[in-house]
């Protein structure tokens, strides 16, 4: 017995020693009177070089440190005015292919010399973009002419309704030419935003601090370029969703991005937490590889569309926190039209369409591939049961996302699930998903009429004609049925009830510059 006690004592002592070591090293110290905003993210920040990365999470961080020519607002001012001046004060089309743009003359970079931002930097940034990943966002860009220090003329290949909007994309934030010329280490860290990088420990946290001598310090608080509200913003990855929720409840973080819906009840009960919900923009869809037999049969695809119970899918995937959808365009985008007849859940209609397609008794065996994990797992499970009812035997094939994606690009899949998140440019939906030969056209759908309409929506100047074309295009694509749109997930986010100044986007690209935790 004595031995046991002795051993226990040793154990306690050792743990104590360890606790001592850890305690002194763990605390980050004297940030007591500083306003710190800690955001629990669902993914690792992996690359902060604006133009060579493409992850939403990186962009959310970079929004605080860098600024774009055009500001894409969150729609709180109405769907028609989504693009505001930012580093550019105004822009006009001189003719179909030339845009004259004036820049703010009071902006400087957050380097030691407070180098002013000029037309040189803008030209440098845009030219550099053409050699980088972000070039897709700038499709059609020909060149940039410096008119004077604060005026530029951008030349584009052909008239495009959405070119200026492209300039609002975070990877196209203006960078310092001088930093690159001087050979500064990691020159992309230098931006004009109200925050600058303090420390990034991969997999642990990324800490931003407020810029003391920010160029826009005198701007009114309601301007989108106004100085930051918190002194420090910290992004911490909590990959495991439940952990993120617990961390919010225990006060380790102030914001929990994407809390799992089935745990919302705990957050709603918690009086220190606010759960916020609004319609989102992320579309989840079920689709066919239309080049694979028998899915090249349009009537058969329509039969499948009628057999899918979208309400059940919505329920299983996100507990109903979303909107079932008929059209292929993300909600909130220009020209969104969801009133076509489409293919509602109707097993009888599905069966008659099956018969019409030449499969009166079903008897089709196929494979549904998707990326493993939620919500695809849940969606697939419901759809598998749905299709069984009309005699289609579905084998589920979950894969790692990388494999699934390659497989879809190569056209190896039969049925598949995928998502599309777009909140600013319609061309990124129509062209990327449905245009012949486009990179994300995993349906391998190719149709001359659809291509023609897509081009029309992109380049037609008469907005009424353009809107009519957009409507026709959506009706056409829904009827052609290369994909069955399932639902648009709501934006759900939970945060400390004292959090003020949030600026949230339905697609998840939130703006944290003006958020802070009130005392």
């Amino acid at each position, binding site marked *: 017995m004595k031995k046991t006690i002795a051993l226990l004592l040793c154990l306690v002592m050792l743990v104590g020693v360890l606790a001592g070591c850890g305690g002194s090293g763990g605390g980050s110290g004297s940030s007591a009177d500083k306003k710190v905003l800690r955001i629990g993210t669902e993914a690792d920040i992996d690359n902060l070089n604006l133009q060579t990365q493409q992850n939403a999470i990186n962009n959310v961080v970079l929004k605080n440190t860098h600024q774009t020519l055009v500001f894409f607002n969150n729609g709180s001012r109405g769907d028609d005015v989504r693009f505001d001046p930012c580093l550019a004060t105004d822009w006009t089309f001189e003719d179909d292919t030339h845009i004259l743009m004036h820049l703010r003359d009071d902006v400087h970079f957050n380097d030691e010399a407070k180098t002013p931002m000029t037309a040189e930097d803008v030209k440098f940034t845009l030219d550099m973009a053409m050699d980088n990943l972000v070039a897709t966002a700038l499709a059609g860009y020909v060149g940039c002419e410096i008119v004077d220090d604060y005026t530029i003329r951008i030349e584009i290949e052909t008239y495009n309704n959405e070119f200026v909007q492209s300039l609002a994309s975070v990877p196209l934030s203006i960078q310092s030419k001088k930093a690159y010329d001087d050979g500064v280490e990691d020159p992309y860290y230098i931006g004009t935003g109200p925050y600058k990088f303090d420390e990034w420990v991969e997999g642990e946290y990324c800490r931003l601090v407020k810029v003391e001598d920010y160029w826009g310090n005198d701007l009114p608080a309601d301007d989108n370029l106004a100085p930051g509200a918190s002194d420090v913003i910290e992004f911490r990855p909590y990959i495991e969703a*439940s952990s993120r929720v617990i961390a919010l409840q225990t006060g380790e973080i102030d914001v929990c991005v994407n809390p799992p819906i089935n*745990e919302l009840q705990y957050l709603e009960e918690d009086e220190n937490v606010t759960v916020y919900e609004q319609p989102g923009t992320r579309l989840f869809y079920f689709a066919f590889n239309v080049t694979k037999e028998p899915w090249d049969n349009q009537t058969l695809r329509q039969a499948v569309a009628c057999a899918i119970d979208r309400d059940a899918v919505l329920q299983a995937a996100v507990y109903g926190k979303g909107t079932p959808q008929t059209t292929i365009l993300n909600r909130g985008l220009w020209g969104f039209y969801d009133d076509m007849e489409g293919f509602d859940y109707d097993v009888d209609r599905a069966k008659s369409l099956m018969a019409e397609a030449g499969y009166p008794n079903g008897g089709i065996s196929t494979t549904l591939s998707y990326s493993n994990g939620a919500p695809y797992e849940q969606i697939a499970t419901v759809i598998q*049961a749905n299709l069984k009812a009309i005699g289609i035997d579905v084998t589920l094939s979950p894969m790692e996302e990388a494999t699934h994606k390659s497989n879809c690009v190569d056209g190896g899949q039969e049925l598949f699930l995928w998502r599309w998140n777009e909140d600013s440019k319609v061309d990124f939906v129509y062209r990327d998903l449905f245009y012949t030969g486009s990179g994300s056209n995993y349906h391998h759908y190719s149709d001359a009429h659809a291509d023609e309409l897509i081009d029309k929506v992109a380049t037609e100047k008469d907005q009424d004609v353009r809107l009519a074309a957009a409507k026709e295009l959506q009706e056409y694509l829904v009827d052609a049925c290369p994909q069955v749109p399932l639902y648009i997930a709501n934006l759900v986010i939970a945060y400390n009830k004292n959090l003020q100044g949030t600026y949230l986007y339905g697609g998840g690209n939130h703006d944290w510059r003006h958020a802070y935790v009130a005392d």
Partner: protein
Amino acid sequence: MATETKATTKVKSRTLFQETWRRLIKNRGAIVGMVFLILLIAVAVLSPVLFDYETDIIGQNMAEALQPPNAAHWFGTDEYGRDLFARVLYGARYSLIIGVGAVMLGLIVGTILGSAAGFKGGITDSIIMRGIDIFYSIPNIMTAVVIVSLLGTSTVNLMIALAFSCASSFARIVRASVMTIRDQEYVESSYAMGLPTWKIIVKHILPNCLSPIIVQITLLIGTTIISASSLSFLGIGVPAPAPEWGALLSAGRGHIRDASYMCVIPGLAIMFTVLALNLLGDGLRDALDPKLKK
């Protein structure tokens, strides 16, 4: 001559078997483990009779979704309203088949590699054994991830992926045993008589290392069941809607707060099964240990 040897081995092995059995049943832990495993095998064999796969196992009933354990659903229901009790019992089939299958596959490959290394010696031996060492230093989850992404997700591919890590430990055991007996007279005489190598392996080598192999099999089945569940947990194991235990756990992970039974129960199923295998394995180890013979 040949028949004589056979006869003696037979007599000897029977006594060995009886001896082992006698010692094994004295070990309470091993008995508990064995009884549990026999019951589990019975459940696995009978579950297709007890349940209809289409309706009881994968049939959805959204109206009864996420019910905590109660009189009608002893283990509760999952997010699609499927009875967890039925799914867990049915899942025993998957876990056992994967565990046993992967280990047997590993045993075959390991025996071939081990005896090749042991018999040939020299450069072959070095290459095989260094290869195994290196393979050993690569975490087996990684190997499995790569193999599964190569071959695609399915029960059989999962088995192949897991068999790899089993093969190396069998290869070591077999090689060691080959090394100790390959120079003994009766093996040499078998050679002289023109017996093919595989026959020598089956007749002389395997019986010789039977006890460590049996122990290793029991323990490895347990480890393999755990590895399989880990892979399912990472999303690359047995595809839904099959009720493999790891897949059940993985599904329960999202419900750790609102329906923790979904996570607790399949975990307990895995734990008790592996515990039973470990108890039996330990019992066998003691029973087969020549040092303890008196």
